[in-house]
Structures are given as structure tokens and as C-alpha cells.
């Protein structure tokens, strides 16, 4: 067993884990963060996507021990102070989910996409989400939701400066500082 310390959705956790434990297993089984789900065993589907220090990773594709000293944001930590993240709202508004199983990963990946490219073309969105599978929607409304969130981001960005990956104007900076301090 190895001891790790991870900050997940704003809470610090310190646990003994088996070295082979995947990050997604740690999140689900040790922390009860079942909003993050497992859809495959080959890292193709992206259902388990979370943010590690603000960047999207497939949590089935890294070990819990690799997250030691880092900051993880899951779908459950995206809404701040009871207010949905713009992408969560956009997914709802645009009917970008049906069964909803891929949705947490899809939203987390879309956050990352917009962080790196706040004004993506349709093709850039499609390519940016290529690592996340959805069987219900045919992707059309997911693309629409990301476009809507990008438009909103642009509008609010013009008013109040740059937004961050998790949609909160100040949190990313805090997150980066935290990571810098612990890693």
C-alpha cells in the first residue's frame, strides 16, 4: 500500500492505496465520487474524464498514486456555490444528453477544449471530443452545447476577463497555485 494525498473537488484526502489502483477506482470506491463513471477498459470511451490540475485526463488511464500531490476536479466539483457551470447549463439547454452516462466525461472534456481554444470551429469541437464516446445523441447537440458555452464564455469574457477551465474566473489560478505548492 502507498499513501497518497490528493485534493479532490476542493477537499484534501489522504489514503493508503494499492499501487495498482486506478484513479477512477480510487475516486469511486474510496471517495464515493460516483459521478465519474467507467465505460470501457481500453481508455477509448472517455466516460471517466476528470481534470488533473485543470487539464483533462481519463481517470481509468492513470494510477491513483500518480495523482499524489495533485488537484482533481470531477463532475461533482464543477458547479460552484450551487450554480451550474456554463457547460452543464448548455448541455441541458441544448439537449446534449439522453441516457447521460457519457455526460460527466463529455462535459469535463469540453471544459478542457474551451480552455485551450475558447472560440473553436465546429470541426475543432468534433476533433476535441474524439476521445469521448456517446451512443445516444449522435453528437450533434453536444457540439451545439459546446458552441453555446463558447459563445457565452466569449460574452462574459469580454465583460469580466478570461474564464478558466472550470468556468470560474478565479478558481483556476487558485488551483494552479495549490498544485505549485504541493508538487
Amino acid at each position: 500500500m502507498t499513501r497518497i494525498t490528493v485534493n479532490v473537488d476542493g477537499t484534501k484526502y489522504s489514503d493508503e492505496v494499492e499501487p495498482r489502483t486506478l484513479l477512477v477506482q480510487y475516486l469511486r470506491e474510496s471517495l464515493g465520487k460516483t459521478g465519474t463513471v467507467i465505460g470501457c477498459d481500453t481508455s477509448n470511451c472517455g466516460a471517466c474524464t476528470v481534470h488533473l490540475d485543470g487539464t483533462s485526463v481519463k481517470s481509468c488511464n492513470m494510477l491513483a498514486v500518480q495523482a499524489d500531490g495533485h488537484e482533481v476536479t470531477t463532475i461533482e466539483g464543477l458547479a460552484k456555490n450551487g450554480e451550474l457551470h456554463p457547460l452543464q447549463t448548455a448541455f441541458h439547454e441544448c439537449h446534449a444528453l439522453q441516457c447521460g452516462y457519457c455526460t460527466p466525461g463529455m462535459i469535463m472534456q469540453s471544459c478542457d477544449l474551451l480552455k485551450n481554444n475558447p472560440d473553436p470551429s465546429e470541426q475543432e469541437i468534433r476533433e476535441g471530443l474524439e476521445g469521448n464516446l456517446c451512443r445516444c445523441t449522435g453528437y450533434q447537440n453536444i457540439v451545439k452545447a459546446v458552441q453555446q458555452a463558447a459563445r457565452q464564455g466569449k460574452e462574459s469574457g469580454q465583460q469580466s476577463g478570461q474564464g478558466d477551465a472550470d468556468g470560474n474566473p478565479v478558481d483556476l489560478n487558485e488551483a494552479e497555485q495549490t498544485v505549485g505548492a504541493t508538487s
Partner: protein
Amino acid sequence: MTITEDRPDTAAPDAEIGKARRRKEDQRLITGRTRWTDNLTVPGMLHLAMVRSPFAHANITSINTDEAKAASGVIDVITGEDIKDVQGVNANAWPITTDQVTPTHLPVAVSRVACAGEIVAVVVARTPAEARDAAELVDVDYEELPAVLDLKEAAADTVIAHPDLGTNKCAFWKLDSAEQGSGGDVEAAIAKARTDGIVIEREYRQQRLIPAFMEPRSVLVDPTGEQMIVWSSTQVPHILRFLIAATMGIPESKIRVIAPDVGGGFGGKLQTTPEEFATIAISRRLGKPCKYTETRSESLLSGHHGRDQWQKLTLSAEKDGTVTGLKVDLLADMGAYVAIVGGGVPVLGAWMFNSIYKFPAYQFNCQTVLTNKTWVDAYRGAGRPEATFAIERIMDELAAELGRDPIEVREQNWITHEEFPFTTVAGMTYDSGNYEAATAKAKELFGYDELRAEQQQRRDSHDPVQLGIGVSTFTEMCGLAPSRILGQLNYGAGGWEHASIRMLATGKVEVLTGSSAHGQGHETAWSQIVADRLGVAFEDVEVLHGDTQIAHRGMDTYGSRSLVVGGEAVVRAADKVIAKAKVFAAHLLEASEDDLEFKAGRFEVKGTDKGLAIGEVALAAFAGHNLPDGAEPSIDADATYDPVNFSFPHGTHLCAMEVDTETGATTMRKYVCVDDIGTIINPLIVEGQIHGGLVQGIAQALWEGAEYDENGTLVTGSFVDYTLPTAADTINYVSDHTVSPSTTNTLGTKGVGEAGTIASTPAVVNAIVDAIRSFGVNDVLMPCTPERVWKAILTGSAKPAEGEREAAPHFDDGAPNQDNPDTSASTQGGAQ
């Protein structure tokens, strides 16, 4: 005659029906507050891992569990022998003939396995990881037996999938229009056409597909004393409960089945599975709650597959293109066992191959066959995509033979809108439709004439990238199903649906539905229906489903039946509530019932300003202080609705594909569909169903296929090899509607869950074949990979036309290869 309108006639300004309501379901799904079965835990819960056969066909000679049992955290290792008397059986609910050959399907194999992936032992451990570790330690000795994998070989009975049965031929089912009196003699029609008409004969392949829902299946069983709760990722909680009782000897009243949040199904979760039955048997044996969650590889291997048919069609027509007969011979692969619907899936095609066309004579023959592969059952569309594919492909072949536009030939033969209701040659009565209107709208949105002109221009200029236009004018039968018809077909259950409405004292309304949603948005759509019907606020309606202790009666969700059958049950329950409330309202208002009018949620005394809202009546019923003498103090109501007929959505789908004739690469340029699904309750949900359905149908045409190697190993056993389309593979689709309401239910709905999948596959393949038909190509096997398209062009019967462009040279003469020959000996002289 039916009327086609642009808007549903229910779309009054304040009406909920027709409104693009955002879904009530979304909040928990976008925030991760979901209750997928695998998210659930029960105190003391143990975890199961399955030991599965690597062989397609083998006798189990011995199983040594000693090492596994000794491993850390392992509670027990259980074999089929251990639970053979209590594990029940995976039943076939639809033996299509009385003499169907049906192998017994045990959840955990006892002495022989008939396909790779069958469960032979189950490890029970404290954690999932310990269970899986120990599963590796179970030592199973097998004696391999010859396996039959190919469908046509299996039909020849040289190698037998189940030696004790003596044959692979499972059942033969026939519909003949002359014999049943619904049409003429097809052999005579074909014989006549051979002398003075046109006969088109084709054989098409429906490759095997995997439903590939995103949530892997999971089951958690908690045996609480005599009673038992089963949480399962299933489409069919009610059917599961019935079959547990029927095959395991557990009283139905002791069983509660809950389908919590279920992550997609597409037919793939309408099975009662070996994993469910094994988990139930083991949790009861140990008296402990047990959970099993499959891995994706297990899901692809052991969840049922879909399609897998060879389809021989003979179409006869007069020289002017008027069709005179259609004969269909199907070979359908059942896999190793006859699954819950099993042979019924291809048989559903019996009423669909003739589609929207007026064939005077028709015959449908279906031979179901057993092989040593994963069992096959319903996958989105279930029998209807297969039929639609074949008929839409061969209608294009007829048009090509005639040298005419494929839409024009279809129009010459389809049922015109004046002819409804129309009884088809297969004996189905289509109640409504307007194929002309849907097609006209689709052509306009598509820019059909412009794209045809561009296609001609590319042909004339020998453009290496050719353009093809694919047409699919489909219909389907939804709303499964009138119970009497199911009885005539030997199906083991009815096709009704149940709903209850509870009128709460505070004015809120609870709707219990026997439909079991797994992504379709029933909570939202049912709320809209009830809000309109009872005149209450959309927000005040709560829809409860997926728990047999709450919604105790139901036939669940599949076959685009929820809205058409389940929605109608909700409407009828609401009408009963109104009828009950009216008696109370009349009493409370001191008026005659005849003088009351129910409008927008209020009972009003005609000609006065006196009235009562239905919520006020509910409160009065709750209090019970002032009700008519002897009245039961409740206005709650139940309804069980058995449909009188199927519903028949239809539509016109048009697809433009660009085909690079030098590489075989295909690119979708444009896709337009105009669907007539009757009245639309929620256009947003409908659009979502269409998009998702389209992509699954397009995926069959272009990307997906379950492939086995010669040993019977599924080689597309992960998402690396079973290639679901991604966002980058797909485009935006143009979808629109015409509306000719169904006449067989109150709301005029027809069903939409499967439409996109049924219609799109032939549209895409027709487009690809259309693009390269000038090369002498008349078919490409699905999935139409670049390699297959390229080979079809190479082996096509037509030589390149005069002036056809040669393929561009890969390298200029004398120019160096991209690899430097000095540093890479292995690539010398070799262009890749």
C-alpha cells in the same frame, strides 16, 4: 385520406404538447448525482467476477477452484454444478413455431459451453479486484468440440452447435400472401416477369452488430430474508421480475426489481441475462447482497448481439417499373441460444419487407439457425432495419435496371396518401401516412436536383471523387403490440401498458408508468401529456417508473412502444381521474354533472363563474368531509391500455456521399431526413432520438461489425476494435417532419425511437453504390470500409470510361522515396 400539417393540431398557445421542454431528468445527470446500478452499495455487499469460457464449443471436464478459494478476500467460488437446481434458466419468450429447436440456456454452464464467453464459474469476494484476481486462479479443463461459426455452413448442418439437438435449424417461419389471402401468388408473378417483365435477384448481408450501450450492465441483489431486491441495469424490470419468478421458483410477490438510472439500452438490455440469474442464485445461496458489474470486454462478448442475416430477395416488375411481386428468403443467426425474443426479431421483418410499396404478391421465408457464437436478439429496430435495408437497396436496383430516378420509381409504387387506411400484401393495415409530402420536403431541404446535377457533372468530368445520392423511403411498425396478435404469434406475453395517476392533496400529481426509460426522457414527455390533459402545471407532475414496487404493472420499454402504448395508458388514466373528479366537483358546486365543463384544469358550471380546479377537488377527496353519499374518497385512477393496432411512422431520408475512387474513402456530404412520426410531444427529445438513431444506422453502413476469428473468438471485443463513431466521424444532420397523426391512439403519436436507425443504413449504402455504379458495382458489403469500396471499384464489371483518369503516381520518376535508402535498408525500392 390523412391530412398533413406543418404543426401538430394540439399546439395551442399554452399547450405543453409540442413544446421543446428541457428535460426534467438532466439535473442529476449533468451534476454526477446519478444512481447507476454500479454506484449503489448495500452494507455487507460482496462482489462477483465471472470465469468465462475461452472456447466456442467445449465440454467442461473439470473445474478446480481450490487455489481461488484460498485467495485473499474470497468468500466462495461457485460452479454451475453447485447451483444447477436453483439458477433458473434464460428463457425464450417467443418460440416462433411450435416445433422450434430451443437449446436450454443455463446462466452458468454445467457440462458444456456453446459459445465463447459463457460463464463456467463465479468468484465471490470482498472487493471487485479480489474477485477478478481469484477468477484467474480457477482452473477449468475443457475438451474442445468442433464449432460452427458461419451462418450458411451452420444451415447445412455439417457441424452441429448443440450435438444433442441433431440440427442447427432452429425454426422455419413463412408468410405467403396467396395462402393467407392478402395477395397473389408470388411464384406466378416472378414467372410472368421472367418472360415479359423485369426480375431483380440480390443477396444482401446484414452483418452482426453489438448494441454497445455506454453503461456496462450491472446487477445488485439484496436477499432480505425471504424477500429480495434486484437492482439491474435493464430495460425490462417487469419482465425480469416475471421471469425470475417463472424460472427460479421464487414467488413473484417476494421479488422487487428496480431499474435505477440506466445508461442506454437500444435493445441490448431487454434480455434477462445469465449474469442476473447467477447473481440472484449466488446471493440467495450465501444470504448476502452481491453485485456484479461487467467490464466493457465482457459486455461486448456476452451481452446479446444484433442483426446477422443473409437476405435473398427476388423482386418482379413490369417493364414500366410497376412492381408485381417480392419473395424474401432469410437466414438468421440466433447464435448459441434462442434469446428472449430470438427468432421473433427476424420474423418482425415479415410485415416490413413490402414496406410502403403496393406489391400484389409477396412471400417471406425465414430460417433461424444456431451457431457457436454469442446469442442474437433485438438491437434498435429489431427486424425492421434489416427489412428496410433490403427493400430500399433492391428498389434502387430496380431503378438502376430501368435507368430511372430512384425516387420516381418508388413514387410509382408507393401507397398514395388518398389510399389510407391501406391493407398491405403482408396483411397489415397502415392507418395513416403521406409519403409524397415527406419526400417533397426532403428533396427541397436536400437540394436534390442540384446534387443530381453535380453528380452528373462529376461523372462527365471523370472526377476521381464521385458523388452518390442515396434514397430511403421507409416505414416501420411501432407500438408493440396488440396482445391478441402477439398471442397468435405464440409470443409469451401481452403488449399492453399500464399507468396510474395519484392526485395528491397539495395539488401535485404522481404518474406511475410501466414504461421503463433509459435515456428517452419519459419524465419530461409524460409530464407534458399529463399537464395538458389535467390542466396542471408541468412542474407539478412527477413521473415514477422503473421499480416494480412503485409502478407495479408494466411491459417496459422497447420497440418504440413507450409513447404509443404507455403514453396512451397515461392519457386514459388521466381521463378516468377527470371522470371521477367530475362527480365530486358536481357535488361540491351543487350542480348537475351535465352542466359542468372541464377546461384548462377547471370544472366550470356552464354559464356561470362558478368553478373548481382539479387540485381543489383532489384536496376535497383527501379531506373526505363533503363527498357524495357512499363515495370512495379518491380520484386516483389506473389504466391498462392494449393497443388495437400497430403504428406506422414513415419518412424520407436522403444522403449524399462522396467516394474517392482512388482510395475507396467515403465522406458524408449531406444528410436530410423528414420523418412523419405523428403528433410530436416534445420536438427537442424527438430531434435527439432522430440524431442518435441516424448515427447508429450510419455506423452499421460505414463502421461497425462484430467479427469472429476461425476459432470462434470475438476479435472485436473491445472499443479499440468495435469502432463506434466519434464526434469527428459524424456531421450535422438536417431533420424535419411532416405530421399525419396516427388514428389509433388519442394523441396521434407513432413512435420515434428506432426511426433514424431503420432508415439511415440503406440511405448511406445506396449513396455509396450510386457513386460507383458507373464502375459496374451494384453492392458493397457492410460496413463499407474504404478497403471494401476500393475493391468493389477494382472488381466492378465496368472498365473505366474513355478518358477515365489514371490514379495519380505516388512519386515522380527518379524522385527519392520518403525514406532515405542509405539509412533504411528495409524500405529500399518499396513504395508503401
